């Protein structure tokens, strides 16, 4: 997974930021972190906006990553074992956002 580190204060961000909220700098350096994380929390959506209605039910998850970062994303593949603390792996990023699968 790609993260963005402030070149002034070194704070890490995901996704990229217009301005570093810690120091106000606007230059960031991209780097990679481990694709694996754990689920901090999740929900299964049954009532969705129109553009997502054909995907119901779908799982939105909040994943704890390396470097004390977290990201909200979607779970793809089988959801057996979906629980707080479960291990997941990043699979791809598209228009919907960050996708993960349970491992």
């Amino acid at each position, binding site marked *: 997974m790609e993260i963005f580190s402030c070149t002034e204060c070194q704070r890490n961000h995901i996704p990229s930021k217009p301005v570093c909220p810690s120091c106000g700098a606007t230059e960031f350096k991209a780097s990679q972190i481990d694709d694996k994380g754990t689920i901090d929390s999740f929900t299964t959506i049954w009532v*969705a906006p129109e553009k997502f209605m054909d995907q119901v039910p779908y799982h939105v998850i909040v994943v704890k990553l390396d470097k004390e970062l977290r990201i909200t994303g979607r779970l793809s593949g089988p959801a057996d074992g979906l629980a707080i603390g479960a291990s997941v792996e990043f699979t791809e990023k598209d228009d919907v956002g960050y996708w993960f699968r349970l491992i």
Partner: protein
Amino acid sequence: MNLRSVSVIGIGSTDFGRMDGESLVDMACAAANEAIADAGVPRQKIQAFYLGNFASGILVGQETLAPKVAYQLGLGSIPATKVEGACASAGIAIRHGVILVATGLADIVLVAGAEKMTSSTTAQNTAALAAAAEELEYNAGLTFAGAFGIWGNRHMHEFGTTRKQMALVSIKNKHNGIPNPRAQFRKEITLDDVLESRLVADPLRLYDCCPVSDGAASLVLCATDMAREYADKPVEIIGSGQATGFINIYEADSMVAFKATIEAARQAYDMAGLKPADIDVVELHDCFTMAEIIDSEDLGLFEKGQGGPAVEEGLTQVGGKIPINPSGGLLAKGHPVGATGCGQAFEVVRQLRGEHENQVSGAEIGLAHNLGATGAVSTVHIFKRS
């Protein structure tokens, strides 16, 4: 800077619910006109107008709303300004009215909140509400109920909050709504009703969620030293706070607390010189059952993690240690998003005037808490019987 004391001298509200045939401007005018009449203030004396509204552009294709309402009310050339902070829009309107009077820039200010939602489909409303989420989470298909589902699962995980405790919030608030003629939902529900209602966003079911509503509510604010010229029972605003929190879930410092609420409450308690134990009645932002549990902790009414047990022990019922949402709250009274903050203040003022349909006996100090978006903004106001 010396701030002047500010009081509420008039209140007005439409019913909340399905208001077929009433436009957004119609409803805002009805509530505001009622507040002006209740204050007995000549409309020429009103010096500014703030209107809370969330999504009029998306939901009814109308913008530039505040000047339209002020014009229809015959308020002349006074400044008329819409403020927006999703579900906290009307709390922000009150906050700005308070600032204008407290600083002496105006003596009398009209504030209102209004929203028209039932003419849109569930999918349209869900999409409009989801627009208050950060773009990344919006694109991922996160809904408001989904956000509270995520926080709810985490709260249950960290503190052992139970599915039953969440349901009891809904049962209590629906019960509270029964005597309230403004409430959208006025019948008892059972534990089975909640637990067997359809899933919206796990673990939240339909009866964990507030309904889609139309409605408007309004207050007339006045410098306290002039309030007795108009009102027999002015209610003083002794504390006011507004704060910005995290705009998404993944960067927030906590998934079981809202920083915006904690900070807005701190400001309001400090200004009032009061602590949570001094509050007699609370109207807080129960857009979902889990929201009431989290809010009650963030406002300091209970220790973090104890909001669930507090409901189960009956501490938040009318007659309990700290009655929460005797109006029925958003869950029963309804949640016309941009109107809610003024609707809550309307209910608290009626409590402190001693004229509420579900009166908390001897209530002298009341608190109204409004929360917007995924915890991005909150207002807290503390009111005192004069």
